[in-house]
């Protein structure tokens, strides 16, 4: 089990990691995700030992490893560019760490062959990285990692160098490997689709802090703040500025300049008066018969994908994306009426914190 406790990092006077607490259980596939500059790669390198931890603790299996050198932590890393040694064969690449420790050649050979079999690299052992495809190179990088029998494997955006078809294939491969090896994995990516499809646990990072961590569906349905709500899920959740006033107890009335007026249940009275933001995902806005529904808007863009259709309605300053099942023959310029599914509405205060979650 890996624990980061109140970890901080400074570059000079600039604090880049601002008190981060993360737990990853054994055997979990944890994904650190976030926009560029959020600190996810820095955190990964701090876990690996390639960057120092200025404050806080990094605990692996009960031991504080802040000051342990990278090669003695029992952690292996797969780099974004794979960082394979270009002048060595696949076998030499995988066995490099063993040869550094002067392990006898026969034993290195045995272990390398074992690893190669798991990764289906046996036919390529004598090739050099230059003669391999992207997917094969990645497997060599993984092989180099698992031969060390690490307690934790780190992946630094391993799929971003691949083209999209290969990416989908490798995603499946990685998940298969994870199940087979029963390894603990920390995986860094900026792609929330990768996070959602592969992770047991997602840690969303934003500007050096953890915005939220949990299972993928938890983050999807119960985002704790506007950032996670809009980061997870594609297309993004619609966020509409509203004004909140209290009507009766347990209910709050919201009005938007667009003409949308709805009442939402607010059992705890947690919603403050005044400015609020309504969050609702495209699939929770439904087309209503003309004139009925919560509000109407003009269709600006129609994207027909066959199995579903995305409509962008409203104005340029406030576009709203609506997802409908099946194919729609609506044209830009048409006016549509829309209903918002009450139970799927989120409310955020002006600071972006959630004050009302979707009802389960």
């Amino acid at each position, binding site marked *: 089990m890996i624990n980061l406790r109140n970890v901080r990092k400074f570059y000079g006077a600039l604090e880049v990691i601002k008190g981060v607490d993360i737990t990853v259980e054994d055997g979990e596939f944890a994904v650190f995700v976030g926009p560029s500059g959020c600190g996810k790669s820095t955190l990964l390198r701090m876990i690996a*030992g*390639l*960057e*120092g*931890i200025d404050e806080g603790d990094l605990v692996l299996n009960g031991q504080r490893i*802040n*000051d*342990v*050198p*990278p090669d003695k932590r029992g952690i292996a890393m797969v780099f974004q560019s794979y960082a394979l040694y270009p002048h060595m064969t696949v076998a030499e690449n995988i066995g490099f760490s063993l040869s550094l420790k002067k392990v006898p050649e026969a034993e290195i050979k045995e272990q390398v062959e074992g690893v190669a079999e798991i990764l289906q690299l046996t036919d390529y052992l004598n090739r050099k990285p230059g003669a391999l495809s992207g997917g094969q190179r990645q497997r060599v990088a993984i092989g180099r990692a698992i031969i060390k029998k690490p307690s934790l494997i780190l992946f630094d955006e391993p799929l971003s160098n691949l083209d999209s078809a290969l990416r989908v294939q490798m995603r499946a491969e990685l998940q298969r490997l994870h199940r087979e090896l029963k390894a603990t994995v920390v995986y860094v990516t900026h792609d929330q689709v990768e996070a959602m499809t592969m992770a047991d646990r997602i840690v969303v990072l934003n500007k050096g802090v953890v915005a939220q961590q949990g299972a993928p569906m938890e983050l999807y349905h119960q985002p704790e703040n506007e950032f996670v709500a809009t980061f997870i899920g594609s297309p993004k959740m619609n966020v509409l500025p509203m004004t909140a006033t209290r009507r009766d107890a347990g209910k709050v009335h919201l009005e938007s300049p667009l003409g949308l007026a709805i009442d939402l249940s607010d059992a705890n009275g947690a919603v403050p008066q005044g400015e609020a933001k309504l969050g609702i995902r495209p699939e929770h806005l439904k087309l209503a018969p003309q004139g009925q529904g919560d509000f109407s808007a003009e269709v600006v863009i129609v994207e027909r994908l066959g199995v579903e259709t995305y409509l962008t309605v409203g104005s340029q300053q406030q576009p709203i994306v609506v997802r409908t099942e099946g194919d729609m023959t609506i044209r830009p310029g048409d006016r549509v009426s829309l209903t918002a599914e009450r139970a799927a509405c989120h409310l955020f205060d002006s600071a972006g914190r959630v004050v009302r979650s979707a009802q389960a």
Partner: protein
Amino acid sequence: MAVISPSEGANKTRSDLIAYATLSIISIFCAVPFFWVLLASFDSNAQLFLRWPEQWTLANYVRVFTKEDGAKWLFNSLFVVGGATLIVMVLAGLGGYALSRTRAWWKLPFLYAILLIRVLPPTALVVPLYKFLLTLNNAEGAILRPIFGSYARDIMRWTGFIDGYLGIMLVLATMQLPLGLWIMKTFFDGLPRDYEEAAVMDGATMMQRIRRVLIPLAMPGLAAAGLFAFMSAWGDFLLPLIFLSSPELQTLPLGLFRAFLRINEIDYGLLTALAFIYLLPAVVAFGFARRFLVQTFSGGVKG
């Protein structure tokens, strides 16, 4: 290559100190010889060996221009080397473009030839070159003398091949051409053809394309080629030694060399002042060329 880890903080500082130390030693080794030229040139009683001047003076520099032919040498060097540099820039600019864009059969042989030419030691070429230029010179003289009579000699000073500005400029330029062509070819290789193709669509002839589109784009490459040609030709000692003999045409390296060969007391103050004057343009050009050095050499390593 620095990989930081908390437990290696101390090692890192130690490695940095070693780096400082080695660089300092190497830098001192590189810099020390220059001190003499610097100090002695301002020394009123300069000696061959290094010493702190008892009396600082600018008299040495003044003497270079008044008592000696420093002005003439400086002018000759600037004129000859500058002219050669210009020739190289024009020819290498045009030729480099041709080499880059052509797909003819002679492209590869020509490129190989350029590389091989660069490895030829100049001393091996000097004698036949001298004979050849002598023949050309005599031929030129034979043509000019009937027309211009006694003025032919003066004209030959400018247009002659031996002991003439034209000859030395052409020879110096030729020696720098291979590198210049190579630099410009590599440069044009990296320039997308889009600009020229747009110009072709606009109806420009080749000369128009070269003048109005390519030259402005080629400035960085030309600057690099020009600087390298300048620095190399400026330091050339052998070619002026062989091909220039009359005193009016002597360039700085020759003046410097002869000043050192005086029979009686050598005037070290004068010598070092002259050396400093000779040194300055080369160092200045080098300062500008630094930016281009990495690019030029990287081009050779990328294979």
